[in-house]
């Protein structure tokens, strides 16, 4: 059989297994990318009629689609900022101060995380209907922030676990007031947790379907626009936009993770 050692066999089997799983994860994405080049013009856009780049051009004339993507980004950025702000304050506050009712707040925080989104969606819908809050960008931002806050708080709490309060006390002994201590000492330590929470909040917001479905009124978000397109046949310009988003995501990930930036900085430092 294999002349290699048993370990190496296992190692290769493992690599094959991982490859298969990745293939499973990326398969529909490959289908989407391929279909973005489909030269079909008739609904439901299923049969392959040749290769073309036209749809990437037509994409920029589809103002409804672009508007929906713009809305999604706006909502995501706003909800992330809002939830990060509220969540950071809350996480630090809950860690530092003891008070009654902490368990109740804890429980309330778990609700948006654990319950199925549809329950959150319909309860927010009934709230907006009864309080006459206008359905649209406002209601969507409020809804998205609601389910983002707990995730931000949990991420920061994970960071706070080993946190040493004595630095803060030292800072205040040296004359800094609470606000300065918070901004210059506490926040930098928590930064990775805040960053992780914000990233998670952003991810959840741009892909949210169910909560947006009930609270959107007239405003289209990108996932809802895709849902609408699926009903009548997804035209390849939606595929084109998804492909572009995917490319942008991969570029960001590669840039932030790779040594490319580090090497670039080294080179620039050496030159200066």
């Amino acid at each position, binding site marked *: 059989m294999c002349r290699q050692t048993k370990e190496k066999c296992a190692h290769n089997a493992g690599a094959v297994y991982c490859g298969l799983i990745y293939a499973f994860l990326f398969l529909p994405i490959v289908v989407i990318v391929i279909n973005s080049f489909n030269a079909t013009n*008739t*609904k*439901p856009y*299923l049969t392959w009629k040749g290769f073309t780049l036209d749809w990437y051009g037509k994409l*920029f*004339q589809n*103002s*409804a689609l*672009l*508007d929906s*993507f*713009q809305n999604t*980004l*706006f909502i*995501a*950025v706003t909800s*992330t900022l809002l939830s990060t702000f509220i969540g950071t304050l809350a996480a630090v506050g809950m860690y530092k101060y003891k008070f009654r009712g902490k368990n109740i707040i804890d429980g309330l925080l778990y609700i948006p995380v654990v319950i199925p989104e549809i329950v959150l969606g319909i309860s927010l*819908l009934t709230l907006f*209907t009864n309080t*006459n809050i*206008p*359905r649209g960008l406002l209601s969507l931002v409020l809804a998205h922030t609601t389910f983002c806050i707990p995730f931000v708080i949990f991420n920061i709490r994970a960071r706070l676990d080993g946190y040493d309060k004595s630095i803060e006390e030292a800072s205040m002994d040296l004359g800094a007031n609470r606000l300065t201590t918070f901004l210059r000492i506490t926040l930098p330590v928590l*930064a*990775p947790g*805040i*960053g*992780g929470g*914000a*990233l998670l909040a*952003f991810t959840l917001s741009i892909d949210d379907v169910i909560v947006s479905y009930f609270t959107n*009124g*007239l405003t*289209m978000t990108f996932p809802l626009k895709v849902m*609408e397109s699926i*009903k*009548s*046949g997804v035209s390849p310009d939606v595929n084109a936009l998804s492909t572009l988003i995917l490319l*942008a995501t991969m570029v*960001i990930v590669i*840039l*932030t993770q790779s040594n490319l930036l580090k090497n670039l900085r080294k080179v620039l430092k050496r030159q200066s």
Partner: protein
Amino acid sequence: MKKKQVVSILLTFVLMVGGLTACGSSNSNTASKGSLNIYVWTEYVPDSVIQNFENETGIKVNVSTYSTNEDMLAKVKSEKSGTFDIVQPSDYMVEQMIGQGMLQKLDQSAMTNKKNIGSAFLNRSYDPNNQYSMPYLGGVAAIAVNTSKIKDNITSYADLFNSKYKNTMVALDDYRAVIGMAARSMEMSMNETNDAKLAKIKAQTLKLKDNIKVYDSDSPKSELISGDCTLGYCWNAEIALAMQENPAIKIVYPKEGAYEFLDNWCITKGAKNAANANKFINYMMKVETAKAVSEEYPYLQPNKAAVALLGEKYKNNKAENIPEDVIRNGEFLKNLDTATLAKYNAIWTELKK
């Protein structure tokens, strides 16, 4: 390090938004004449027609879509009144919405193109003198057969219940349509309220469970064209469009009499853009507009002036030009009381589980 990553990611997205905004806005008309929010059936109003209206008037049109009358009613009720300016209820739904005070009267002086509409479609019982509605398109829910896969001679709704068509059918995702069809297959009314008869209708409806493969009210032609389904209970224009893509697909009008409908333009009470709405409805009744609509979605066209322009291919196409006897034998839906509707909903839940 992580903070820099987050900042860079956020910056990139902000740039993306900026870029897309620039691209998007350079292409859209800078509309200063106001806007219009329309809520219409999916696959019913061509994009070209709306684009034309925007170009002609400078009014920005926001389109949202729905799949059934009941969905539309639910959404309009849950939103602030006047969120949607224009809706497209079917015959019985117009009556229901008038009864609930959800519609406002049309500005008859703005309806200059009303003369194009055939008199048979005006002044219907659900809205005498067309105070609240103008007809848009009508049609029936007929049967589609992929003759290359199904060789039997299908002539009626009753044929659809044959167990040999297991897992082959695409049906409308509309409980009144499907339960009504089951009723008609036994020559009962689609608006039955009698408990004994409802029990029989329930038993008949549940026979469809194994036969229906996909529920789709929006674009059943997709399932027929892709071959996922070889039998269908769909809107006639959807069948006509499927026939264009695959000539093996044929339309069958059920001999018991089909489920017939007539959809209308209405303006909601409290609509913020009522003037634009009236303009839009009048525009839709123009001859050129109606012709463009029929070319894309070949339903029953009430605009007789447009029909005259449609040509031989339309006249000879049984799926588009619905035969007179089919229109005469069709049954329209009527409003039912909430208790009866709850029973219909229960049958539907049991069918779909």
